């Protein structure tokens, strides 16, 4: 698998490190320099980053409109809350469970409607998000606690038999590192996917679904995969959110939350991972920065969106299409255009 790395590519890799290393260092140092309040803000930045990344798969990579993503987030949160409070299953064990629950739900709901195009699918997602929220309020089987929600959710703990508890995630700083570790791993995984046959298949479908089908891509399969994966990640975000707040209630998963996630992807740039991080930063930090103007928040937010769409429709950091990362030796062995 030895690849010959051309000088300009090496330069590119260096310049990428040049940005990446300080950013990661800043993230590591940040919580030790500020108060718990600011650590919590950064925690919610992490939650929104994860939600943005999850929606980005569906909206950014495949171009499917999903305005019900808060529903998957809710399923992750409630799965965690209910299984933890009723059965005492540890939070960390529930991370994959929450992801699977949300993913399974997405699979069941979207299997029959995945062929719908554009705005029709949008309406389905919209309805799905609202149905989930209403169901939570209606307290089915006395599980969800109605409008009050579920409370008394435990901290994430790691306990070994014989040794006892070795780790409890009980402070803002630990939650901060928990969420950002998850975001970091997610980014690494999604980055590999972007440069794989699956990531390309998603993009082909976004660009032209008929052509994608006629070129041998099973669009139904890949669209469903995007929804399932996106829902799973939103479920993970729900899990961390639930154990951080120790209480979940339906009002945390309104249509407004779905809108915010949608904005994160649009502001950042469809299909762009750095873009999603910028979008998430904007959405989560914005209310804090403009706290003195809380009354005008929506006004400023709305105009920012409009200006964005007018002057930078590709988003703040659009995905760059360029050289495929994984280049074969052909160009180096001297073969070029005849």
């Amino acid at each position, binding site marked *: 698998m030895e690849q010959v790395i051309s000088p300009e590519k090496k330069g590119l890799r260096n310049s990428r490190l040049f940005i990446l290393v300080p950013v990661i260092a800043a993230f590591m140092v940040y919580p030790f320099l500020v108060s718990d309040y600011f650590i919590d803000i950064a925690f919610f930045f992490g939650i929104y980053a994860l939600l943005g990344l999850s929606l980005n798969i569906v909206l950014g990579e495949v171009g499917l409109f999903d305005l019900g993503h808060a529903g998957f987030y809710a399923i992750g949160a409630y799965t965690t809350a209910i299984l933890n409070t009723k059965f005492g299953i540890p939070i960390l064990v529930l991370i994959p469970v929450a992801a699977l629950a949300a993913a399974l739900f997405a699979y069941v709901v979207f299997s029959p409607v995945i062929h719908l195009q554009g705005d029709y699918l949008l309406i389905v997602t919209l309805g799905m998000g609202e149905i989930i929220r209403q169901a939570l309020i209606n307290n089915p089987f006395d599980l969800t606690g109605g409008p009050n929600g579920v409370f008394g959710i435990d901290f994430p703990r790691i306990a070994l038999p014989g040794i006892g508890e070795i780790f409890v995630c009980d402070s803002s700083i630990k939650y901060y590192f928990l969420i950002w570790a998850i975001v970091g791993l997610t980014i690494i995984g999604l980055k590999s*996917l972007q440069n794989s046959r*699956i990531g*390309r298949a998603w993009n*082909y479908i976004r660009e032209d679904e008929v052509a994608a089908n006629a070129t*041998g891509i099973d669009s139904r399969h890949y669209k469903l995969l995007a929804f399932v994966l996106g829902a799973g990640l939103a479920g993970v975000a729900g899990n961390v959110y639930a154990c951080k707040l120790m209480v979940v209630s339906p009002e945390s998963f309104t249509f407004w939350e779905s809108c915010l996630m949608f904005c994160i992807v649009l502001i950042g740039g469809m299909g762009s991972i750095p873009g999603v991080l910028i979008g998430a930063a904007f959405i989560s930090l914005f209310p804090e920065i403009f706290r003195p103007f809380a009354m005008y928040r929506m006004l400023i937010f709305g105009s920012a969106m409009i200006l964005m769409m007018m002057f930078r429709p590709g988003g703040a950091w659009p995905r760059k*299409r360029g050289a*495929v990362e*994984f280049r074969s030796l052909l160009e180096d062995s001297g073969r070029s*255009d*005849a």
Partner: protein
Amino acid sequence: MHRRRPHCTHDAVLETVGLTKIFGGLTAVNAVDLKVHKGEILSLIGPNGAGKTTVFNVVTGIYRPEQGRVLFKGRDITGRKPHRIVSRGIARTFQNIRLFPDMTCLENVMAGQHCRGKAGLFTSVFKTPGQRREERRILEISERRLQQVNLWRVRDELAKNIAYGSQRMLEIARALASGPDLLVLDEPSSGLNPRETEDLMAFLKALIEDDDVTILLIEHDMNVVMGISDWVVVLDGGRKIAEGRPEDIYANQEVIEAYLGKDDGEEGHGSAA
């Protein structure tokens, strides 16, 4: 170039039997029998609205026929999903070029190899050695196809930014990247200037000699039809009205009438050569 078209039928790559496609009250394709033999270039011609593209769309699985069957390499592929048909070995291009505009030319061609890969979610996330090998193979085949159509120099350009003629060739490269047995081209010369058309004809001739491929095309440009076809099938009003060698078709009275118009009620039957 030697003339193919033997009269034996066992080497038919593609065969349609009584193919019929109805849209509402309109019979777009009416009981069409078509036989494409291995290694030949067959042109489907006919006036506008004759049902040529509909035949293509039925063959490539975009439409499901009301009646009749499509046999590919002796197996029934009627009504199969487009992506399944591609992996069976039929690749196509579109009349109004359909590329992936905001992706690079190389990425466009790599789409063709998609159906030959099998890396799943987990192998792709964790970049297993098998997945890396597969990616490498996809890349190598795609690069070779890109060189074949002389677009190597624009490999990292976005598909929407290259010249129209190049876009046509890129679409052909994408189709070829799937390693098809049958290449289905819908008006490949439309929108090309005479020079580009010449190049296209030369390319297709070379392709049929070098690669193990059969070509079915729709074409309006009579120079192209006469220049490269081994066999010509004429459609009019959804029916096959004639088939034969290009020179015979050129002189066929019925075909001339279909193009220039005579009586609308006139219905002809195939005059097999």
